[in-house]
């Protein structure tokens, strides 16, 4: 029997095995590259893995649905990883308790800034209302943001893209920005990037400093709560008002 390479491809390209392997292989490579550059912000592993896989899907004419059949096993772990944030929070509970007031104030102010700034800017640049609504919850982690977007009647898959882009931008910019501003308090730096850029920012913060990672994780979790409450309010006032 001689295996026809095309029919083998047709078979494999429909299996979860291939797409799960592609996801892990590409990420392992971009992560190794990031490590080799000393975790340089521009070598962000999520960003490079994302465009390489997207280009591969386009080149092979594979649909996102087929790809997600394999990638869903990775995507599923977002939930358990959120639960797992309880562990660094528990281990650093004393530092966290000592900073509770600045954290809560920064949470409310930062969350309102994230929503209001994106809605006002998007409107000022003349984007259609449906896109404005889809961008509003972009600072919160993917699953939550898509839920908010759906409840507003906006485009949830555009929201997911905006969430990931926001996460990558924040993760790339935070270290050079904070260094240039001379901010050395890793609690504040971590909290800001977790709030602005959810899990991708949190992953970046853990790469830079353990305390920054803990504060980023708290900011990301609390922001999921506050954004769920503030986005509908902001949309009523700013878009539909």
């Amino acid at each position, binding site marked *: 029997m001689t295996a026809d390479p095309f029919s083998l491809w047709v078979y494999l390209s429909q299996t979860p095995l291939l797409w799960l392997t592609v996801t892990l292989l590409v990420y392992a490579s971009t992560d190794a590259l990031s490590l080799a550059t000393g975790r340089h912000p521009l070598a962000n592993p999520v960003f490079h893995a994302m465009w390489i896989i997207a280009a591969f899907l386009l080149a092979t004419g594979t649909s996102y649905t087929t790809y*997600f059949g394999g990638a869903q096993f990775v995507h599923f772990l*977002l939930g358990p990883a959120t639960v797992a944030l309880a562990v660094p929070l528990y281990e650093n509970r004393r530092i966290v308790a000592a900073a509770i007031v600045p954290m809560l104030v920064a949470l409310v102010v930062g969350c309102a800034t994230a929503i209001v700034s994106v809605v006002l800017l998007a409107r000022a640049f003349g984007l259609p209302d449906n896109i404005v609504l889809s961008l509003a919850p972009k600072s919160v982690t993917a699953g939550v943001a898509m839920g908010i977007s759906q409840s507003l009647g906006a485009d949830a898959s555009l929201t997911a893209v905006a969430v990931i882009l926001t996460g990558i931008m924040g993760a790339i910019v935070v270290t050079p920005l904070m260094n240039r501003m001379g901010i050395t308090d890793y609690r504040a730096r971590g909290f800001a990037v977790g709030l*602005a850029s959810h899990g991708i920012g949190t992953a970046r913060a853990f790469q830079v400093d353990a305390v920054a990672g803990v504060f980023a994780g708290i900011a990301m979790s609390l922001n999921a709560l506050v954004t769920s409450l503030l986005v509908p309010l902001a949309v009523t006032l700013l878009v539909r008002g």
Partner: protein
Amino acid sequence: MIASLTLILLCQLAGEIFVHGLALPVPGPVMGMLFLLVLLLARDKFDWLACGPLQGGGVEGGARGLLAHLSLLFVPAGVGVVQKLDLLAEHGVVIAVVLAISVLVTLLVTVGTFLVVGRLMTRKRATP
């Protein structure tokens, strides 16, 4: 490892049940995180809770394993960009500019608020 993962999933499941049962506008995993935190704190108070994954750093190790590759977990959602190429061809540049400015402003406002409030608190404590 399996016991730790089971405990983490149980917390998430309890979180989902709690959130959906009470129709709260909170994501289930965030509630699950609170449950796991309460469990860990309770373990230090009550010895009988220190069993299975809650002893000898079991669940701590499992959680660290998950968090070590947090970035990887965002890749599948990010690849979703392929579904939005026509929309991004039309509005992509504007959307990117809007998101970039918003992220910068949010980072600066949040870090500034955190530091100013933190400083005000220490000053108040220094001069009662």
